[in-house]
């Protein structure tokens, strides 16, 4: 499963994620790809970082950048990662690709105090229109896959994600819809207009 698939808005989302993370934090990046975000977190925010990546090429590229990376399948439970060992666990555009998103969210909030999760929003109007008018599985700029080759196993909207958090007793510390490549906190009609959304999560005490 190719975690960390190329993302056209990578620069923006990297920036957004970094803004959620305090200087000098201990950060785990799940599905770190080629280690790009880890590198920026270390060099620009002085974080102590650790990556996890399944794709072999991504692991080698991370090593080449000098980033520590553990090769592991996010669906296998992250057993090597001790509990409460990170301030932040980051999961960018990957939650919809794992087989058991609930388990992963739970595990993230066990190894880290806060989770920063970027998820696509399948409630976007363009997706609704494609299904409604054309009767076909949606293919859009931010979801450039056909149904038979998409790495995305789960399709949820912002509303769905909020429901899941409530059900799992996870507190949403911050919700940032991303509309036309811009962060739009508190924007009207976000569930219709946002391509994706960034969440900062923590356990409900």
């Amino acid at each position, binding site marked *: 499963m190719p975690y960390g698939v190329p993302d056209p808005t990578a620069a923006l989302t990297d920036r957004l994620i970094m803004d959620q993370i305090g200087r000098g934090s201990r950060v785990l990046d799940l599905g770190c790809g080629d280690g790009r975000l880890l590198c920026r977190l270390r060099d620009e925010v002085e974080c102590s970082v650790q990556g996890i990546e399944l794709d072999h090429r991504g692991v*080698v590229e*991370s*090593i*080449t950048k000098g980033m*520590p990376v*553990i090769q592991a399948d996010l669906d296998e439970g992250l*057993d*090597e990662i*001790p509990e409460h060992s990170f301030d932040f666990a980051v999961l960018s555009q990957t939650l919809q690709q794992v087989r058991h998103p609930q388990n992963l969210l739970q595990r993230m909030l066990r190894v880290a105090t806060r989770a920063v999760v970027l998820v696509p929003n399948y409630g976007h109007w363009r997706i609704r229109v494609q299904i409604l008018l054309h009767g076909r599985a949606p293919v859009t700029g931010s979801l450039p896959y056909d149904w038979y080759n998409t790495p995305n196993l789960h399709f949820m909207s912002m509303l769905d994600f909020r429901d899941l958090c409530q059900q799992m007793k996870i507190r949403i510390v911050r919700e940032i819809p991303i509309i036309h490549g811009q962060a739009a906190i508190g924007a009207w009609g976000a569930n219709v207009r946002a391509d994706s959304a960034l969440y900062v999560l923590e356990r409900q005490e």
Partner: protein
Amino acid sequence: MASEIAQPETTDAKSVGIVQTQYVTLFEPPHPLTLEGGQQLGPITVAYETYGELTPERDNAIYVCHALTGDAHVAGKHSVDSRKFGWWDGLVGPGKALDTNRYFVICANVLGGCQGTTGPSCRNPATGQPYGLRFPFITVGDMVEVHAALVRHLGIETLLGIVGGSLGGMQVLDWVARYPEMARSAICLASAAKLSAQGIAFNAVGRRAITADPQYQNGDYYGDEPAKYGEVGPRFGLALARMVAHITYLSEASIERKFGRDLQHSDHLAYDLQRETEFKIESYLHYQGKRFIERFDANSYLYLTRAMDYFDLTQRYGSLQKALGRTNARFLITSYHTDWLFPSSQSKEIVTALVETRRHVTYLELESVFGHDSFLIEIEQLEELVTPLLLETYRRIRDV
């Protein structure tokens, strides 16, 4: 402990060429080494080889720790006519992962070994007799003390890297625990922070095979005249020890693939118990045993396997976190999914401790059919990881 099941190809063109083993005497009176077991030992002769050039800054040295039955001869050949390359020639040489055009690579035979460094087969300078069982008890930590002394003797304070697999990996871990400042990177392959009970069990069988051989003679089998290995002593016991151990270095899949149930001499079964090597796998193990006794000392085998049994960083430091949490070395840990002697769970235990103590760690469980021996065979797979790790580590210290 390389098996012959698949030897990586190697050619003169990509080799470091002709190399020579060098010798140095350390821990001379009045400065003997105080061993972990409490006894003192000195002087200690160390057999070592080096490849490449040390920079004026002395910042490009990489130390290779060999496994149980390895030696200082990692790369190149000892003579033009020799057909035998060093045991890790695929990894060490010009343009290779341990690039001798760039790095200064050191490897020494371990303390207690029998390939030139002081061990039980050497003559005790105080008595003129071979040590035999009078050689003091040694540990992995004692081996590392001698390695570290050699490094200092070569005028090197900090190593760019320490690399090793299996017992060599144990030395890597012990080294960074013992001298946290001494290494910039630590590469630990198919190894563990402690030998498993299963590992101790196999070692016990090997030792019993040796000591039960009538020719063992309580370790005093050397005779008065210097003899070649394989001519005196518990030949059958040592060969048997090697046969058992050799199975643990392979995997069910690799044995099946190479030998299956093939017969050695005939197309049909002989129905004859006297035929000792009827199946190909039997013949192969006998051959391995025979080859082994021509190059290894039985007493060394006892001492080194015992050192391996005793290795336990958790016990020594209170926890793995305490043992490994003080070094800033960058770790590369690998395990192999077919390795049942040093299973991945043991590498993961190291990784967990390193993550918990915020160390820099990269870990992969690699795919290979070759079991524990994979680290000696799957050179390209290792090269892909080791090359960028060393390059980046070196670039970083040079930039600062």
